[in-house]
């Protein structure tokens, strides 16, 4: 008890101290280039230290006043060919063509405009800016006697080609997936939505990693309040490293303690484009193929890309089956335990005796037996994921089959338990985005059912619905087309209405322009034309 109070006193003291400790991430002091090139040289050597992939090349150019210049770049991040052909070559050979230079100073303006045949050139005296850009793939070129350095964009590095993403495989629909470079991802999106209103704003987050993050949205559709809210939340992130969009997701999401995700992510450009066209905003993070999309609603995780490409009848049926499989994966173990231990009268007579027979010689009570099977299943799933592709496949198949059969044969587990576990296992993969919440819910309901039977499950379901209804994702209620009931949004929830009838965008996001299509687009036979 005493220890506890001591901790509280320390906590109070630390709190008062906190205001005075200076913020570790304050901006670094600003340095400016000097006109003497040797001084600059020593400054850069001191900044970059001993890393050998940074190349500092001294060149001499100009005819009568021999001028010294320095070119600096990071080997591997730049395209060597452009540096040699369009920077060094013109400086060394072509300079002599511009004879008409009169005065003694080096004609920097003329070099920049007439000589260096490169796309983008920026000028800046600040060393920090120079260093940051140099490390992200630009080459910079300074000249003796001039206090400004040139930034020439020559970014080109090895990156993974545009391949089919592993996580969301699709039977029908585009197969391209995002890759690690931000510029390629934005180009993939730009190819999908060729519209000047499609804005991509860049933000730089992460003191040490300087990851560039791009907020993509449609100016005339997305709700400006949403965009400002995203910027505010991104602005609040004060961390030194952003390596994956998951960091961003956990920093900006609405309910950090909730088991339900409130920020959606996807690897496919067509999915993200569809979400942007619906009025959502996408957040692309450099260095990861997973793009976030906010706001997210619970119903969104039951919609897959393919639902919108195949015909609406089959799409609606598969979507309803997804809802059922989510219920099955969360509730079956709990119901099995509740029925077996609390409400035996539910079981029909014929099933009753085969069940009792199989439960007869088992050592463990049903609760622990099912618990062990559930835990083994989760271990198997994790093992299957973590191991390299070939071995992973083998593990999950071998594990499921052999272990299940052996356990039944050895008489540790009844065959009904294996069936229940198999059903829950299979149906847990159907709703991929909610797999995390499904596993958590399964264990929560299982414990409740173990202790209180049917009542436990009822209380669990009511509690989950309360939690879901109180969640918000960027201002949009989490169960929004269902809980605050919007009748005309129901066309895309349980069933996917045919395309020609999906006239308006979802209303729950406060979208500015609701109309998505014209009216009366139902395809009809030619002779019907003049009848109506």
């Amino acid at each position, binding site marked *: 008890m005493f220890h506890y109070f001591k901790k509280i006193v320390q906590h109070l003291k630390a709190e008062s101290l906190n205001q005075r400790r200076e913020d570790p991430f304050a901006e670094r002091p600003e340095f400016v280039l000097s006109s003497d090139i040797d001084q600059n040289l020593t400054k850069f050597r001191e900044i970059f230290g001993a890393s050998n992939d940074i190349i500092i090349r001294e060149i001499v150019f100009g005819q009568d006043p021999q001028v010294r210049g320095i070119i600096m770049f990071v080997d591997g991040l730049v395209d060597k060919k452009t540096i040699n052909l369009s920077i060094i070559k013109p400086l060394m050979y072509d300079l002599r063509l511009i004879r008409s230079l009169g005065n003694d100073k080096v004609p920097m303006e003329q070099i920049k405009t007439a000589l260096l045949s490169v796309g983008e050139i920026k000028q800046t005296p600040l060393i920090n800016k120079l260093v940051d850009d140099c490390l992200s793939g630009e080459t910079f070129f300074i000249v003796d006697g001039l206090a400004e350095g040139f930034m020439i964009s020559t970014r080109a590095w090895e990156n993974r080609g545009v391949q089919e993403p592993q996580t969301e495989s699709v039977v029908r629909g585009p197969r391209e997936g995002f890759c690690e470079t931000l510029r390629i991802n934005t180009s993939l999106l730009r190819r999908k939505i060729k519209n000047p209103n499609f804005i991509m704003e860049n933000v730089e987050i992460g003191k040490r990693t300087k990851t560039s993050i791009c907020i993509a949205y449609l100016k005339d559709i997305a709700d400006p309040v949403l965009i400002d809210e995203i910027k505010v939340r991104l602005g609040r992130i004060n961390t030194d490293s952003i390596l994956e969009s998951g960091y961003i997701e956990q920093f900006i999401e609405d309910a950090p*303690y909730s088991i339900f995700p409130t920020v959606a992510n996807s690897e496919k450009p067509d999915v993200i484009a569809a979400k942007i066209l619906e009025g959502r905003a996408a957040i692309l993070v450099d260095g990861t193929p997973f793009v976030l999309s906010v706001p997210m609603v619970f119903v969104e995780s039951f919609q897959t890309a393919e639902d919108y490409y195949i015909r609406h009848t089959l799409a609606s049926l598969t979507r309803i089956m997804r809802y059922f499989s989510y219920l099955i994966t969360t509730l079956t173990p709990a119901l099995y335990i509740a029925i*077996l*231990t*609390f409400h*035996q*009268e539910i079981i029909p*007579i014929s099933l*009753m*005796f*085969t*069940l*009792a*027979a*199989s*439960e*007869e010689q088992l050592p463990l*009570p*049903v609760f622990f037996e099912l618990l062990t099977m559930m835990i083994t299943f989760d271990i198997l799933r994790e093992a299957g994921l973590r191991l390299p592709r070939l071995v992973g496949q083998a593990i999950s198949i071998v594990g499921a089959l052999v272990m299940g059969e052996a356990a039944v044969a050895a008489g540790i587990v009844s065959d009904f338990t294996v069936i229940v576990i198999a059903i829950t296992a299979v149906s847990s993969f159907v709703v991929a985005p909610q797999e995390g919440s499904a596993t958590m819910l399964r264990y929560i309901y299982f*414990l*409740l059912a*173990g*202790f*209180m*039977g049917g*009542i*436990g499950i009822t209380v669990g379901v009511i509690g989950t619905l309360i939690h879901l209804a109180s969640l918000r994702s960027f201002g949009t209620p989490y169960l929004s087309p269902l809980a605050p009931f919007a009748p005309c949004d129901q066309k895309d929830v349980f069933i996917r209405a045919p395309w020609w009838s999906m006239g308006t965008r979802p209303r729950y996001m406060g979208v500015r322009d609701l109309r998505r299509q014209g009216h009366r687009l139902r395809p009809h036979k030619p002779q019907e034309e003049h009848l109506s």
Partner: protein
Amino acid sequence: MKKAAAVLLCAVIALVAAGCWSSGELNEFAFVVGVAVDQGSAPENILLTVQVAKPSGFKSSINGGGSDEEAYWNISNEGETLFNTVRGFTHESGRKLDFQHNTILIYSRDIAKKGLGDCMDLFIRDHEFRTSTWIAIANERAADVFGVDAGLETLPAVEIDKMMDAQQYNSQSYTIELLDFLKRLKSDTTAPIAPIISIRGEGDDQDIHISGTAVFHKDRFIGELGGMETRGLMWVTGNVKSGIIVVNCPCDQGKAELEIFQAKSTVTPVLKDGDLSFLIEIKEKGNLGSQTCRENLAPTKKLEALSERQNKAIKTEIEAALKKAQELNADIFGFGEAVYRKYPKQWKSMKDQWSEIFPTLDVEIKVQSEVYGTGNITKPVN
């Protein structure tokens, strides 16, 4: 963080507080499928026989091996009152009896004669019993009924349950659920009825036979209806779903069997200035099932003659049931209720004298049957 910790703590307290009070593993229960109540050795005692399913018996039958040992186990216990005999079973079997899966409730004839009242209350009050179980009266000792081998099923009680369902195909016995029996028991005038189970044959080729109906006055067994009278009763109460009526052919050289498809009955009390009479109308649709005479019964004239005879046959059955009921002075048809429904005010005065009015009640019976098909062939082969 503090708030989350507090909420979690409350959750755990709530969970543990609930605890697992009324949970029980499957192997802690002995599942009862049939209950039989008999007269105990001493006059006021009751002998309770219970058929319990033995799970091990099922195990071997699943993976193919013939199960020599029975899949059920009959235990019986004797005591004055019902509930403490039920609890007394712990002397016999280590597991607690679980009546949730009980399908059949059999009373022996002598217990029924003495009165079911005192050994019925438990089956309504306890939360484990369901009112959708069958109720039946055994001709001799109810315990023996559970001893008979189960024929197609693994448990005799389940076999009886299936037979009770099958009775609707020949409408020879009025199968009734506990709820209907209690409804009749509760009403002042209607007489409760229950099917009769008897065992035929001896030694190991005994089999269960369900036929006839037992009639009660309040909760005492007073009489019995034969197969034909039961059918007459079912015509009136409209419970006939299918069955066979045997009539003589129009040419009187053989028999024709007509299958009943659909039967509807309306019972209307008629009260004309004080004296009460009943009108029973039966509409029946049937089909010519088979014939032994050589005559060609296909033409409609012949079919009408057949339906004429069928009307007479149905009428005789109903009259037989009526005569037997009036003999026993037991309103098994629910006439009293019908009068109450139609003339509530007058019923108040007639209610007490109903036991006098009913035996001398005149009932007019109108039957309108229709034979509309002769199956696949028109004329008999030879």
